[in-house]
């Protein structure tokens, strides 16, 4: 009897022991993400799938990304070091002196940002393949295909080489193809021209989204720079696409320059036809670090808080980037409407445009430096070891006072606008047959300057600087004019190889295949 009881107990125990988990197949269960299939079956989620492709672009317009590479390396912008401040491992000095290496922070990180944008366009296209092709889906697909080549354009513009994957590729342990500039350029042109008819028209697609005119402007930009990318100029095609835009009746030069950059510039762009392509910003919600007011707190002196106790992040601005003296001295400060504007002076104590001389707070009291000396911005400013007050500052986008959140902006970022198109046409026309003066003067006269009697190469590049300063075009423009390697205030003549950034070392390490990709010459 006792023995039976024992046996039963043993059996119960054994049963308990082994019945719990019979071998499992170790499926990982993810609770906060999904495979995407459930999501994309729901049509109302489509904008949320496509949106991140746009979001990646928003990421380009801050100082450590595309914007920084296109501006801080040129004669119109630099980030001087002030004592300990702004050294940041030498990135800003290297950027301005063209001494960057394949490990330069922003060279490295920008490659990643462009890649992310390109990859998002790829895989969202793949996801959309599962959908029945409605009108809406077709439009999204056209936008996504546009973004694929649009992001590829940034690769060849900055790095001279482009990693390419078919959008159907999902095995990211395999290397992509690596394309050179001409191959990529031709592919982009061919793709964009075939996508253009598929895209929506301005006014029929929502504000901020890619439409036919964005594609036209993109093609104009590509042809404008074709000689740089392929050694063969594309001036005629550039003029053709500029004509399509300028003659469309959908765009006109803005009469008021600073309205373009106002807090409510979205309102402005719906009434007025200056902007062609914008990144839409919103300061009411957190959209990552990328929607900073990029030119308010990096540039203004620590104490220039514009009447807000804590404009910018935390205490106040960071006292960073300035305009090099050589560029500033070219401006017609007496007449050029783009130089200064006093519309926010009463509320903030500061002017829009270029900030120079004694600065005041919102009550008109002169500001001082941390050393209690008058805060007087001066054109002279060394790249290393600048004083607090040295350097002319730029306040192009109107600051919102008080800000809803210090690190956000409501002003939409203008990527392309029609004034650029006019100047592009002037330039292309000039290259074709020495014409283009009318377009140049159309912009100049609107900005308060006297028309020029004749058009020169120097006049075009200078005008592009005055009109488009700190808008993220300068490096590309200078390269096209062969001026990127020239000397200016703080920079000596540099090698032509610096017109292309190095492939980041860590990207080369990741590909780990010398037959596939080599470092650019000169690095």
């Amino acid at each position, binding site marked *: 009897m006792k023995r039976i009881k024992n046996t039963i107990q043993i059996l119960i125990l054994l049963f308990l022991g082994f019945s719990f988990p019979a071998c499992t197949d170790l499926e990982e269960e*993810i609770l906060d993400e999904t495979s995407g299939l459930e999501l994309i079956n729901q049509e109302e989620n489509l904008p949320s799938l496509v949106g991140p492709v746009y979001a990646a672009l928003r990421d380009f317009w801050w100082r450590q990304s595309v914007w920084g590479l296109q501006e801080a390396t040129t004669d119109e912008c630099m980030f001087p070091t002030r004592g300990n401040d702004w*050294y940041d491992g030498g*990135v800003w000095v290297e950027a301005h002196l063209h001494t960057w290496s394949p490990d330069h*922070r922003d060279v490295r990180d920008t490659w990643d940002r462009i890649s992310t944008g390109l990859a998002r366009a790829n895989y969202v296209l793949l996801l959309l393949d599962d959908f029945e092709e409605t009108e809406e889906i077709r439009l999204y697909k056209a936008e996504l295909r546009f973004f694929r080549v649009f992001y590829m354009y940034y690769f060849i513009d900055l790095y001279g080489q482009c990693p390419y994957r078919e959008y159907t590729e999902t095995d990211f342990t395999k290397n992509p193809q690596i394309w050179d500039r001409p191959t990529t350029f031709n592919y982009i042109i061919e793709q964009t021209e075939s996508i253009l008819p598929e895209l929506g028209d301005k006014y029929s697609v929502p504000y901020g989204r890619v439409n036919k005119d964005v594609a036209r402007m993109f093609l104009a930009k590509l042809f404008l720079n074709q000689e740089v990318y392929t050694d063969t100029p594309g001036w005629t095609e550039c003029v053709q696409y500029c004509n399509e835009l300028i003659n469309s009746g959908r765009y006109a030069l803005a009469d008021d320059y600073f309205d373009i950059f106002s807090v409510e510039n979205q309102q402005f762009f719906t009434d007025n036809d200056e902007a062609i392509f914008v990144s839409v910003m919103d300061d009411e919600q957190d959209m990552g670090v990328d929607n900073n007011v990029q030119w308010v707190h990096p540039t203004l002196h620590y104490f220039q808080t514009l009447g807000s106790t804590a404009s910018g992040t935390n205490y106040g601005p960071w006292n960073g980037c300035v305009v090099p003296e050589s560029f500033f001295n070219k401006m017609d400060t007496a007449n050029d409407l783009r130089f200064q504007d006093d519309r926010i002076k009463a509320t903030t104590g500061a002017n829009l445009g270029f900030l120079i001389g004694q600065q005041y707070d919102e009550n008109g009291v002169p500001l001082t430096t941390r050393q209690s000396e008058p805060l007087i911005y001066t054109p002279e400013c060394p790249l290393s070891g600048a004083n607090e007050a040295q350097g002319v500052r730029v306040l192009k986008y109107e600051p919102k006072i008080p800000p809803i959140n210090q690190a956000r902006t409501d002003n939409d970022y203008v990527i392309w606008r029609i004034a650029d198109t006019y100047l592009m046409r002037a330039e292309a026309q000039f290259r074709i047959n020495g014409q283009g003066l009318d377009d140049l003067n159309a912009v100049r006269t609107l900005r308060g300057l006297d028309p020029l009697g004749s058009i020169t190469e120097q006049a075009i590049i200078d005008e592009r600087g005055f009109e488009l300063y700190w808008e993220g075009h300068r490096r590309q423009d200078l390269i096209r004019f062969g001026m990127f390697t020239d000397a200016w205030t703080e920079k000596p003549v540099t090698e032509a190889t610096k017109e292309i950034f190095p492939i980041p070392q860590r990207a080369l390490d990741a590909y780990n295949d010398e037959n596939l990709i080599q470092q650019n010459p000169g690095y």
Partner: protein
Amino acid sequence: MKKNVFGKIAILLLFCCIQLTLFAQEREVTGSVTDPDGEPLPGVNIVIKGTTRGAITDFDGNYTLMAGDNDVLIYSFIGYASQEVTIGSQSEINIVLAADLMELDEIVVTGYGVSKKSDLTGSLASLKEDDFNQGMVTSPEGLMQGRIAGVQITSNSGEPGSGVNVQIRGANSIRSNTMPLYVVDGVPLDIQNSSPDGATSAGINTAGSPTNPLGFLNTNDIESIDVLKDASAAAIYGARGANGVVIITTKKGKEGQAQVSYSGYGTVSYLPKKIDVLSAEEYVRFREDSLGRTEDHYGADTDWQDEIFRTAFTHSHNVALSGGTSKTQYRASFGYLDQEGIIDKSEMQKYTGRLNITQKAINDKLTIDANLTASQQNFKRPPVGGRTGFEGDLLLNAIMANPTMQVYTDSGYYQTTVTKRNPRAMLDLIDDETKENRILGNLTGSLEIIDGLIFKVNVGMDNNVAVRRINQSQQLNYLSSQGGSGDINNKELSSWVIENTLMYSRSFSEIHNISLLAGFSYQNFLIRGYNVHTQGYTTDEIQYTYNLEGSDVTLTSPSAFGERNELQSFFGRLNYNLMEKYLLTATFRRDGSSKFGTENKYGNFPSVAFAWRASQEDFIQNLNVFSNLKVRIGWGITGNQEIGSKHSLFSIGTSTGARSIMDGSTVIPGYVLLKTPNQAIQWESSEQTNIGIDLGFFSGRLSGTVDLFSKKTTNMLLETSAKQPSPTARQVGNINGSIVNKGIEIGLTGYVYDRSDFDWTITVNFSKIKNTVKDLDVTQIATGEASGQGMTGVTTQIITNDEPINSFYGRRFLGYDEDGRSIYQDTDGEEGDDLVVLGSPLPDYTFSINNTFVYKQFDLSFFIEGVQGNLIFNNTANSIGTVGNIAAGNNTFHDVITSGENPLNEVRFSDRFLEDGSYIRLSNVTLGYNLPANNIFWISNFRVYITGNNLFLITDYSGYDPDVNTDANKDGISSLGIDNTNYPKARSFTLGLNVTF
């Protein structure tokens, strides 16, 4: 009144006495105890088996006690083998105790079983309660710091309840948070950071260092800690054994009379050393005379470090009840700890309850163990640590705040300026509170099915819920415009495990002893949580985190996360012992983890070890030199899978940066691939070979262990750049390359003097490890992110071939030119500064020495530990120690004002702020007094002690303490040896009392 109390106690005592003596006819038994040389042994414990009664021998080794005929007497004395004697009819019992200095038959805990120390083939270090560090030790790792060769424990911070970094046999992995596996009473713990995120606000990341994942255990409940160091010991834990395994065994009840014990202590602790900065007068003089600056001189003379540090008081009380019969044993304990930090307002309170029950049934063939721990920890954390922007955290501000500023202005409010923070305000106006509740329980049943065959089931669960509430007042000058912030962050970790093992042991022909183990284990983990951030408060009347609806709800940002993963394993072990001379152990474990790709879900982890007990051989015994000689050799492979989840799957989630506006006006969430999937991802593995010798001389008077090992980690799991374009810039994968740790560990114990009433024991540990990175197919991996003004994105360490892991990499600083600007060494003759490897944060060697003296009822021990040859990057000094910093209105060090540096000189990372981190520390001195047993008959053990911790420190390091490791990881790649405003370690004095009734 007093008399009355006395009377009551007397009655109580009488009652106890009656209780204890009621049962048997008793008579007097006398005798003496001597050692084999005939010398009398005083202080020998004599206990009547099954009771707590007994006696202790006097100076001449004599004793007298009352006992009955059937009683059994147990004679025990440290360093001698215990003896049991049945009284029978004897009235005088004289005993000769044989020396047993080797403790060869000490039982140690191995994975899934126990072993006699003499039978071990692998490298295992065991600490019993007597070996633990004493004084204010609030976590299990603290009990063993410095006590085991090859186990290096560095504090992440001196904050109450903060985590520590435990490295067993060197830095094996590139990723951060590579901790050993902890197993508590058979339950492998999920050592994730259990602390919810902090609130990032205005340049301060109040996350600080994570809390200690073992903090929920009451150190008083721990009976032993066994560390499995080499692969042959750890391979039974396979995929989780690569960083070593720490097995914690809690105290159990013992058969015999019920015992009640109380232990408690009070500790006073304080900051041993302030950072030496300028006085207000020096500050003003230098600024005026040398810099020509007069602004912001407010006339006060404030020592800001004094404003935030305090002398802190800690007290702890533990009560344990234990006892049992031959069938049932139990132990229950309750612990309370209230630890104040030396930074004002920082505090930890801990409540722990623990219950262990053992029940035997079915003729003792079935044993059931139930263990349950419940704990609550409450933290008050200061805004210290983490990554600070140039504005700095509390500590940085306290060191560098303008000494002429007042704490409070004349109007009674905190003095600040537009750009400067007031440290006292930060302390007072930030409230960061975490409440963590943890329950860990397991039930083990083991059944002897037939002789020698034991089946065991272990079911365990572990659940930790932590909620952190952070209020940062809008009254802080830097948060006024955003209206303060309130954060409630929650994190829940839970896991459950089931293990079945079958063990068979048998002897054949007297000389073959075989034991076999086979097992299956399944563990399931869940991690989830949420964070809610709010801001825009208009009133401080109600604490923000009780008034979330009072915030500007349009600025609220919630987030949530969750994942579940599984681990399933099959394992086996063979122990073969031939003639007690030749020992063989072979283990095998096959682990499957849901974290890995379909092709590589399972990994195999074998090990084999052999030992030869040479001292059992006649020819060795005839030498008459060795009392013990054992040679061990072992090899094995262990693994690592701590990489987080979701790396092999294609899946979609949201992130704030992916939000977009698609209709021109509305912000919508964005769904993106948050990881670049890698289906080929597989286990990281470490292959280790160990050769060891255990030695004993002079009848065990001197004993030691020497181990040589070589450990090679390959297939390292790491997040590196993806082959772009890819959904994210980085991808987790296995990188080519290896980390090799080669080292030697020596542990020696000498019984220098052990006669009559005086003992002296010395224990010495030494370890030296050489770390080299090899065959990496990337040029270098950067990590160690610096903090501070002008240091954004600057990395200070690299992982590169033929150098130790985390080598410092930067410029070599040569001094200043005539203009006061830094000159750096030019090594290649070309223009521009050259970056070179500057040295390693890993020490050349570490050592510890413990001395214990016992004189009659007094004992005195002092413990010295040392670390030699490591470099520390003093990031705090980098932020503060420049003329530019004092020019900007911050305080600085004395040597800065005579350095001749130009205020506009740029800070670059160089060896200027690398310092020698070597130190020798008197980390523990304890003087104790044990009341002789039976002096007061109802007390079986009574001890008072006083302990001093961290009493002195010899070091050239200029920061608070060289035992420091601020987390400065970059992209999950760990950093080492960086000090950035670390919460400093305290000096403390403890007065404690242990009583057992």
